[in-house]
């Protein structure tokens, strides 16, 4: 698969419900998560439900589609800021939906797609955006495991790796 994307934003939050904070760079710990993030610290909403959730990603293209209100079914038109969607990394040009079970590189770090993220009612209620749950169906991002850790930076290239 040939594609080349970019890391636009890095966000972490120290615990559930706490507003996300943008970082210029972050350290990823293999098998655990992002330094300073709730899913490394065990303080996330879903921390008690173990799953692959060391790092979560979402496509900037999805946020742009939401802002345009496209597609019109389910019809949500809303500005979802990168600081608000509660995924850690906002990407551009990365086909997240094709990366389940695949390895890819963010800067020097290697991630493996675990499963497609599924939208949650919790986020809709937290942000008070009615319809956000439906609006994110099937494009809610990707939950990943960290295979090789290191520091990632805003603007890092995101590239596929051969399996």
């Amino acid at each position, binding site marked *: 698969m040939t594609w080349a994307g970019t890391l636009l934003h890095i966000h972490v939050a120290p615990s*559930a*419900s*706490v*507003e996300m*904070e943008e970082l210029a760079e972050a350290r990823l710990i293999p098998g655990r998560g992002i330094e300073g993030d709730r899913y490394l610290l065990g303080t996330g*909403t*879903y921390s*008690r*439900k173990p*799953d692959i959730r060391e790092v979560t990603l979402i496509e900037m293209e999805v946020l742009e589609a939401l802002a345009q209100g496209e597609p019109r079914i389910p019809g949500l038109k809303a500005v979802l800021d990168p*600081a608000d969607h509660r995924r850690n990394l906002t990407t551009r040009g990365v086909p997240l939906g094709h990366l389940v079970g695949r390895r890819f590189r963010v800067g020097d770090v290697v991630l493996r797609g675990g499963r497609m*993220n*599924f*939208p*949650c*009612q*919790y986020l809709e*209620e*937290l*942000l*008070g955006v009615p319809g956000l*749950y439906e609006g994110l169906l099937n494009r809610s991002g990707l939950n990943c495991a960290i295979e090789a850790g290191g520091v990632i930076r805003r603007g890092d290239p995101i590239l596929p790796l051969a399996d």
Partner: protein
Amino acid sequence: MSPRLIMKLDVAEVRRVPGDVILATLTHPRRPLLPAATAGAHVDVHLGDGRVRHYSLWGDPADRGAYRIAVKREAEGRGGSRRLHEMLVPGASLMVSAPRNHFELPETNGPVRLLAGGIGITPLLAMAQALAASGRSFRLHVFARRRATAPLLEEAQRLLGPGRVGAHLDDEPDTRVALPALLAAPEPGAVLACCGPAGFMAAVRDAAAHWPEEALLFEAFQPLAGESFVPEPFEIVLASGRRLAVPADRSALDVLREAGVAPPASCEIGVCGSCLCGYRGGTPIHRDVVLSPRARRERFAPCVSRAVGTLHLDLGDAGRAVEPEAPRP
């Protein structure tokens, strides 16, 4: 109870006013607009040591640029206000939740009487500003010991104009008024909202005993005093059929927490409503101050309320936040 965003806000302005009160203005470091609040709402302030306290917002709800809280230092309290007085310095950061409102005025057209005892003026001052903006008829009655130490009285008079604020001060006999006389004749459709110390609210409740129940709105900062209440053990049955014993010396919330099924909780004294859950059967002993008589038929506050015998709890709503990202039913 829906989750609320917790934000790291800047302490933009701090003013010490008489009565050992700090007026603090909280703003967001990056967002010009904060999550909207309705008049009567409060925010949770995280004290950084695991404790959380709620403070009513007294600013104009139409001003979304800042949250304004008034913190009275309670020397005899549980220590939260003393800690917060140390934390409220200009330039500091404070973890603060988005607002929630358990003290909302009904949207009727009748005139509104706002009765404030001491620091209980905070949510009523927000209401008064919203009422003034909507053109609804109202009057704010402030009850305090002395003018010099009446929290927010000066602000109220400045923001609302002196004609809409009545100050009733113990040390100014001319200003004093008997509650039964003040509340003798409710106008048709009138609403009374009251906030203040427990004794003050009890006196208002007595004086308004002839008002229709739905015209009365009380906000309590303190849990109901359970002078003679002796906790007894009881049993919880969950929707799954699982049975949990609640000993006399522990709360239902504690027991739910140990079982890994606790709803989110905040104040743990029955005033914030964070841990509210449903029940399907049994005889609860409600000891919270959040639920209306109607809501008490189906809702339960496990942090302070108890039950006789067996209570069938429904944690449906509360449990959802810890479920995996599952589709809605």
